[in-house]
């Protein structure tokens, strides 16, 4: 049995998580073919209709097909994941490497900033950022990301400062290796496994937070098929059109669950002692 097959056989979280994420990617990629309608195709004749053969998930207050909107919503979720996590990794890893490697004042300043953003409620702080930069999906992603890079910095910093005292780094220095090369050839590659685990664990958090802000009306704006936005407008129709709340919510739960499983599995595999919130 190959190692990879063995890993997948042993690690149930990784197995199920990978499959679920693949399905999600498939849906997002082929949304145009899978969705029976366009996400903004309104049918005034068929408003607030329950699930039927034509509309599996029913229709909303404008007569738009909920299934199609849920399918297109997956693209938004993935956009949030990719864009948001890239920003976090970029800020967090860079600062972590710098502060871990060049101790001293730089380290103290960066650590202080990381502690600060780490200990403040992320939704509140991103709401504060949104007041400055304005509403909208991309702004929300930016806001969430600039308040949640700290976990990357903390982990990468800790790894870096222990790695830089390892014998192989000292040896490299003795063999005249320069500092940039030490950072990028010796230290960064050894932090990659932890970063991968953190990425997979922060994707669900980022998606959830961004959706929450859209739910509050600060993120994606109509007519976007964003799940959070869909949930927020569903509240008015809870009594007679519960499907409006149920299906987008379940899509969100599926997505978060899939990435959570993947993250757990990767953590068991790559860095069992790592903790993230």
């Amino acid at each position: 049995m190959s190692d990879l097959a063995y890993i997948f056989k042993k690690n149930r979280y990784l197995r199920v998580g990978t499959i679920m994420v693949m399905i999600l990617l498939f849906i997002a990629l082929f949304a145009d073919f899978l969705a029976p309608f366009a996400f903004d195709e309104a049918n005034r004749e068929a408003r607030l209709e329950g699930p039927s053969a034509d509309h599996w998930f029913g229709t909303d207050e404008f007569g738009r097909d909920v299934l199609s909107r849920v399918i297109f919503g997956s693209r938004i979720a993935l956009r949030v994941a990719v864009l948001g996590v890239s920003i976090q990794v970029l800020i967090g890893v860079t600062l972590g490497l710098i502060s871990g490697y060049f101790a001293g004042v730089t380290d103290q300043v960066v650590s202080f900033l990381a502690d600060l953003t780490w200990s403040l409620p992320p939704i509140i702080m991103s709401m504060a950022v949104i007041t400055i930069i304005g509403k909208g999906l991309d702004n929300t992603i930016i806001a969430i990301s600039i308040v949640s890079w700290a976990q990357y910095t903390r982990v990468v910093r800790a790894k870096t400062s222990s790695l830089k005292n390892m014998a192989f780094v000292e040896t490299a220095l003795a063999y005249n290796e320069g500092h940039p090369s030490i950072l990028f050839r010796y230290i960064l590659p050894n932090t990659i496994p932890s970063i991968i685990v953190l990425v997979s664990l922060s994707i669900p958090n980022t998606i959830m937070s961004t959706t929450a802000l859209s739910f509050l009306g600060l993120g994606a704006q109509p007519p976007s098929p964003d799940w959070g936005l869909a949930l927020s407008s569903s509240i008015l129709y809870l009594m007679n059109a519960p499907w409006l709340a149920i299906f987008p919510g379940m899509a969100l739960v599926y997505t978060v669950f899939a990435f959570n499983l993947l993250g757990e599995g990767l953590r068991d595999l790559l860095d069992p002692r790592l903790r993230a919130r």
Partner: protein
Amino acid sequence: MLAYTIRRLLQGILLIIAVSILVFSMLHLMPGDPVELITDRKVPPDVKAEMKRQFGLDLPLYQQYLRWVKNIFRGDFGISIRSKTPVASTFRHRIPVTLKLTGTALLVEFLVGVPLGLWAAYKKDSRFDRAVISTSLLFAALPSFWVAVMLIMIFGVHLKLLPLSGFSSAKHYVLPVLSIALGGIAGMLRMTKSEVLDVLNERFVFTAYAKGLDKRTVLVKHVLYNSIILILVMMFLSLPWIISGAVIIENIFVIPGMGGLLTQAIINQDMFVVQGCVLIISILTVLSNILADLLIAALDPRIRVSMSGGGN
């Protein structure tokens, strides 16, 4: 311990100063002039200039900051442009509400999550353990606001058992607290389990067995006590998330706390209210973090030493 306490307090003050600078600069980072933001277009320019002077907006930035801090110390957070009332008086009623909500949620998370986690660790690999862990993984994926919507649908709209909005009686607590805590319980549970399993593999647990202690004593005195310390650390680390959850939930259940106020203020561009809310919530978070650290230091002698400068 005293040195550690002082050190931790100083750190906290530094954090609060940093937050206040951030919050203060919000007003200046916003596009447009603060006076334009709080006045009508109809107000003539000379009145605006007068207002600028009055607010001290013509002073150098650091002086404006000091003035702002001084006002806050006097309890003056400015005036809400929406309600035209002093922001501070609104806060007075709303802060306790948010504190009660988050406090209850934290308590519920702890009281439900930790025992379940302990039991799952004790019965590792049993059917109970597997069921609890799988359920908790699913629960961790439930966004609080969706849970809230579902709870409203089930208990409020269809069963009509519980009130859907407001915050006046114990019954009003049930749904909001449940919405916030459900995901948290799941996290707490899994964390407790993994902490306990980590401690179980520590060498000192073997020592405890080796000196002849019975399983019960080992588990309570050496495993539970040590893991509770770590669990407390984790619990307070999750505090920012609980507060975040509370902000969202307050909106759904129309609870008159800081969260609802903040959301409305952002939508209305009510600057002074936003500033005040963010500042107060941040200060409360920082303070509770300090308290938590002191509590943990009191329980764990290693932290006292490593953080107060002694030892290596």
